[in-house]
């Protein structure tokens, strides 16, 4: 498929999961295609990176389910990175333009897992006592039907509801034409789970290879973590993570990310950036 064909499968109002983590391995070639389409009013579910601010600034997103949005900006002290704040996401949120569901990082994992396993919820201790329950009045608790640790009444736990996705978009290093794919960097993040939780899963890859070459290209069979059982379409998109990283193929492009962030206070510069970026 092409990125535009993937965007053509999306409809306004859909719930779309986006893989990667912060500024790491975001499917930006597919995000660009969304900007070129007329899709709007998306509900985005993500461990958020710059794609959140981009979709918000472009007016394509009305709802967001997230544990964080962070660009992983360079840390001048260590040469590593620090979380940092995304000015475009901040502007949208502070203007009241987004309806948000805030979750603990692990609650998002459980929500996707529940959808993938076709159960309505998964129980967890995570979230008890915190404001995620206050911020989301729809979030329920459940009483364990089994005795508690003292032999008495069962524990009360958070019932994290399934987060079923209409579509998932991820970007990994290498795949074949049928939709098997592998990550060759340090971390798969939750990309497999996003695909398994989705009715339709779309994978863009740095390079498409023949199936018989997949193990060799991935380096090891344990890297083949995405199977065509859970993918609808594959897109060959070299550089498809754009300025977010796709190690070992590419490091994060801090300069390009900074140029995008620098447009936050200037609507004209922001629109010009997105116009040019979506066509590149």
């Amino acid at each position, binding site marked *: 498929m092409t990125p535009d064909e993937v965007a053509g499968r999306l409809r306004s109002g859909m719930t779309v999961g986006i893989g990667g983590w912060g500024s790491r391995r975001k499917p930006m070639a597919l995000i660009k295609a969304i900007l070129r389409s007329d899709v709007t009013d998306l509900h985005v579910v993500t461990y958020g990176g710059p794609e959140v601010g981009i979709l918000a600034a472009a007016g394509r997103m009305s709802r967001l389910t997230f544990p964080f*949005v962070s660009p992983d900006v360079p840390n001048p002290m*260590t040469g590593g*990175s620090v979380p940092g*704040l995304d000015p475009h996401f*901040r502007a949208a949120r502070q203007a009241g333009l987004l309806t948000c569901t805030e979750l*603990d*990082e692990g609650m998002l994992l459980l929500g996707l897992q529940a959808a993938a396993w076709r159960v309505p919820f998964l129980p967890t201790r995570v979230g*008890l*006592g915190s404001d995620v329950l206050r911020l989301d009045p729809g979030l329920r608790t459940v009483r364990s039907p089994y005795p508690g*640790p003292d032999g008495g009444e069962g524990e009360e736990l958070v019932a994290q509801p399934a987060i079923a996705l209409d579509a998932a978009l991820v970007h990994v290093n290498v795949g074949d034409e049928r939709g098997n794919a592998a990550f060759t960097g340090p971390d798969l993040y939750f990309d497999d789970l996003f695909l398994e939780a989705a009715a339709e899963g779309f994978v863009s890859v740095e390079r498409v290879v023949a199936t018989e070459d997949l193990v060799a290209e991935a380096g090891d069979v344990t890297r083949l973590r995405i199977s065509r059982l859970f993918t609808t379409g594959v897109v060959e998109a070299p550089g498809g993570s754009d300025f977010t990283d796709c190690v070992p193929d590419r490091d994060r492009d801090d300069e390009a990310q900074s140029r995008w962030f620098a447009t936050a206070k200037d609507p004209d510069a922001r629109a010009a950036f997105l116009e040019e970026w979506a066509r590149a």
Partner: protein
Amino acid sequence: MPEGTSDTATDVRRADVCAVAVADCFRGDGESLANPIGVIPMIGGRLARASFEPDLMMTDGEATLIANHAASVPAAERVVETFNPYRRMFDVVWSGRRHVMMGATQVDRYGNQNIAALGPDPQRPAVQLLGVRGAPGNTINDTTSYWVGRHGPKVFVEAVDVVCGIGYDRAAELGPEAARWHEIRRVVSNLGVFDFETDDHRMRIRSLHPGVTVAEVQEATGFELAVPDDVPTSRLPTPDELELLGTVIDPDGTRYREVPDPA
């Protein structure tokens, strides 16, 4: 005071005092994942492992746990102990084999912490911050400590705007079963070390860094701190610790840029 250390505060740099205060948070943790997030926490955590807690496991900030003592290690030089991608981190967190030291944009007297947003309306924050991240799960499953690099009344507040990490009052409301793994062990700031070892788990001065007064720290805190009859001075680094910090863990001195010495 440990033998061989200086007896004058002026000889000691504040960042080194903070680093050993952080290290001491991990004392007794044994074979668990020490997960300090940030520059001074990472340096202090590495110091704990390089000296009195050799069994601690620590991350490279990405997907592996590494044996190196240096706080910042180039990828090629990392001595990998195990694969620990984000997916597996939750297995560690939810098993309780972890002590995390996080940052806090706001923290209150019971140790409730906020890194998500500021302002009264959660759906339209006055200031959007990171989000709740993993704080709810950390504080219900793991030992948690906080690091605050700039101690001030906007950080130490009467009530946090969004409870991300839960404090002792919230944990108590849940009852003993739900809260059985909740522990906010310490808060380390550039001014002192604080704990919750009071009858009602209110934040208490555990020690103040050399040169810091009770009045100064109380003025920089937006709620009333519990103050012991005798306020200890934070312990100074030993010569061995200074040697480790300066030659192995943080030879570039990044800690001095994060925590400047008092004027």
